């Protein structure tokens, strides 16, 4: 394996949690809901995932538990924002704070416990293709899941009736309601899906990427996933581009640190955050304003 291949491989691993979380949030926002609590759902996924994996000794159980934890957090968010029509921005912030705290409590007994990460699965034949093979087809299952999510969500949103209804709820909930679509039900399911994705992304962090628990280990990835959705103009394949871009920046700064680039390591570590800001500005400048779902972030209370 060449050095370049090795770097690409690590870029893909670093990008995968961002991509999974971003795709989930993309669906949520397409339905008209802004859930800022991705960070909180993600870290709960990480904590519950490793706790379940260590307790049961099964990585699969860990992943399942992480997904359920993300969904439980999302359900809490949905209860407040959809059931009680509360301000989505504020509840999203609350979810982030709450998740960071609760994950610390859940993860506390597991600090310092090392375990084997989930290994790679090479796809027969495909992984033998020179260059592309080892980079794309000899990865861990999460990477494949991320690919499948991008394709699946893209197909769902733009090729199925349910996807059309979901987009309609995000564009104009009053009209969708008038046509008899169940706006709150659609949004609830979308929020749950977002929670499941964030939980899965968290499981990736604690079960594969750094296979042990540290408090606050998401390190702002949930927030970067939110930025990726904006960058992607709410299109799944562009979210993939965005996620690999951010993953690339993360890996490059790590390589730069280890290669002894004469810059403070803190400056290099700040690069992903600074790039996020830069990208948010550039995207707004190039696109000349928001192109998000028209009803994004607005609470809906049906007359009955």
């Amino acid at each position, binding site marked *: 394996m060449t050095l370049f291949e090795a770097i690409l491989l690590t870029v893909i691993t670093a990008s995968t949690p961002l991509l999974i979380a971003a795709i989930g949030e993309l669906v949520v926002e397409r339905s008209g809901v802004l859930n800022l609590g991705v960070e909180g759902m993600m870290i709960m996924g990480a904590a519950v995932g490793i706790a379940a994996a260590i307790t049961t000794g099964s990585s699969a159980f860990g992943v399942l538990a992480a997904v359920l934890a993300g969904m439980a957090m999302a359900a809490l968010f949905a209860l407040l924002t959809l059931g009680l029509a509360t301000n989505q921005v504020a509840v999203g912030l609350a979810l982030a704070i709450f998740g960071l705290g609760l994950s610390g409590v859940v993860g506390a007994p597991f600090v310092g416990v090392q375990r084997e990460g989930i290994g790679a699965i090479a796809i027969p034949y495909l992984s033998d293709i020179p260059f592309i093979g080892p980079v794309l087809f000899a990865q861990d299952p999460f990477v494949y899941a991320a690919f499948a999510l991008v394709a699946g969500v893209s197909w769902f949103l733009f090729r199925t009736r349910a996807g059309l209804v979901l*987009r*309609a709820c995000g*564009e*104009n909930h*009053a*009209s969708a*309601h*008038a*046509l*008899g679509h169940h706006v709150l039900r659609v949004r609830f399911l979308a929020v749950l899906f977002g929670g499941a994705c964030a939980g899965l992304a968290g499981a990736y962090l604690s079960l594969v990427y750094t296979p042990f628990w540290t408090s606050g280990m998401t390190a702002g990835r949930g927030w970067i996933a939110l930025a990726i959705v904006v960058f992607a103009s709410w299109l799944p394949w562009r979210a993939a581009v965005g996620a690999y871009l951010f993953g690339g920046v993360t890996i490059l700064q790590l390589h730069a640190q280890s290669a002894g680039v004469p810059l403070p390591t803190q400056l290099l570590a700040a690069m992903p955050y600074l790039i996020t800001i830069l990208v948010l500005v550039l995207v707004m400048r190039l696109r000349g304003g928001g192109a998000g779902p028209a009803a994004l972030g607005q609470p809906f209370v049906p007359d009955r």
Partner: protein
Amino acid sequence: MTTPLLDAPLLDATGLVKRFGALLANDHVDLRVMPGEAHALLGENGAGKSTLVKMLYGLLQPEAGHIAWEGRPIHLPEPRAARALGIGMVFQHFSLFDNLTVAENVALALDAAEPVPRIAARLAEVSRAYGLPLEPAREVWRLSVGERQRIEIVRCLMQDPRLLILDEPTSVLTPQEAEGLFATLDRIRAEGRAVLYISHKLEEVRRLCETATILRHGRVVARTDPRTETAASLARMMVGSEVAALRHAAAPPEGPVRLSVRGLSVAPDDPHGVGLKDISLDLRRGEVLGIAGVAGNGQEALFAALSGEVLAPRAEQIILDGAAVGRADINARRRKGAAFVPEERLGHAAAPRLTLSDNALVSGHAASGMVRHGLLDRGRMLGWVDAVTRAFDVRKGPRDPEARALSGGNLQKFVVGREVLRKPGLLVVSQPTWGVDAGAAGLIRQALLDLARAGSAVLVISQDLDELLEMADRIAVLFHGTLSPAEPVAGLTREAIGLRMGGAA
């Protein structure tokens, strides 16, 4: 149509009750629609028409009463159930999605899961059959209002309805577009489909319908054949009493020009909007100038430019009492004696969750002495509320309630009164009586006329042609951002104005 079997009603609703908080929107309403009938549902704004049809379409649940379809009792938990029976509905405020295509918009209203390309093909077929041309792949925001309504109608027809409900369909159309709609409706009726036509426009109802149910304050007050009535007799049933005629001065005023606009062009502020193109007008002391036009032809841009919410490109494009104010902001114009009443009461003219005294401050902080050295004078703010309340008969519970606690008519009286009381030299008002009960509308119109007769200049932007014909000395028409020359009302006919509203002259 004379066989006894067909005499059974298609739809028979009895004793429907619907309550919103303290408001009894429908009070034991009965409605019977016969097969193939064109049935009008008449009533003022707020009489309960929309509530009634939303219950018939499964969007609202009645608290009491029964609905029968072809003699069988039915329950409509959601619109899907209504559509399955053959009830279709065209909404007043279209239930369309601007960023989706025509075909996608249609697909969202169909219950069978059909792939969008197949829907597009069927759509083309139906729109051809009824003479309602539509391009399936276009996004809705690119379409005109008339085209948008076509989508609503076509997607109802694609479900082969037995009863088509239309909620105020002509309120957004030019008279000529409305004629096209009537032709379509005639064709739909010729196929034996019934039409339930909601309107407060009496001439339309007389032309189109053979039965009318009239609602007032949530109750059915009359059932009649509108063709045997006069517009005046229908209006009496709708309003309940004769509406007082306005006291109108005889001669159009010839005072000095107070507001002069020259060659004003403004780009639209969002890509879907309409801007202004080379607008010129003169408004004299003592005069009421009416700006007619169908919604979405630049009314918002005109109000924003005249008020200073959006600045004109050059100062001398707007002259107020001799001063070039095109580059002056809204408060500078207020200090020069101008006042403004925007179209939207809640959210634009007033903040819903703030008290009336705070809302008095919204337009009053610049020129009414409510603020000194940056500090609020709460006493003066309250005094202003009291003065408006007295002069405009604003009905409210506490002395200083939140704006959202007032009814539409009372809030409108407040936001108009808030400006009129300052005796402005120029008043620009948009849709002064939109959605307001007849009593409040009369009071507001009279106040505007009195203000003009006392020497102010009043500019009224309105989509209600009757209102303009009643109040204005001269009328100009706004179409696609251009303004026709203002002409004295005496020399104008409804037809002439209607043609201009459609861009035909």
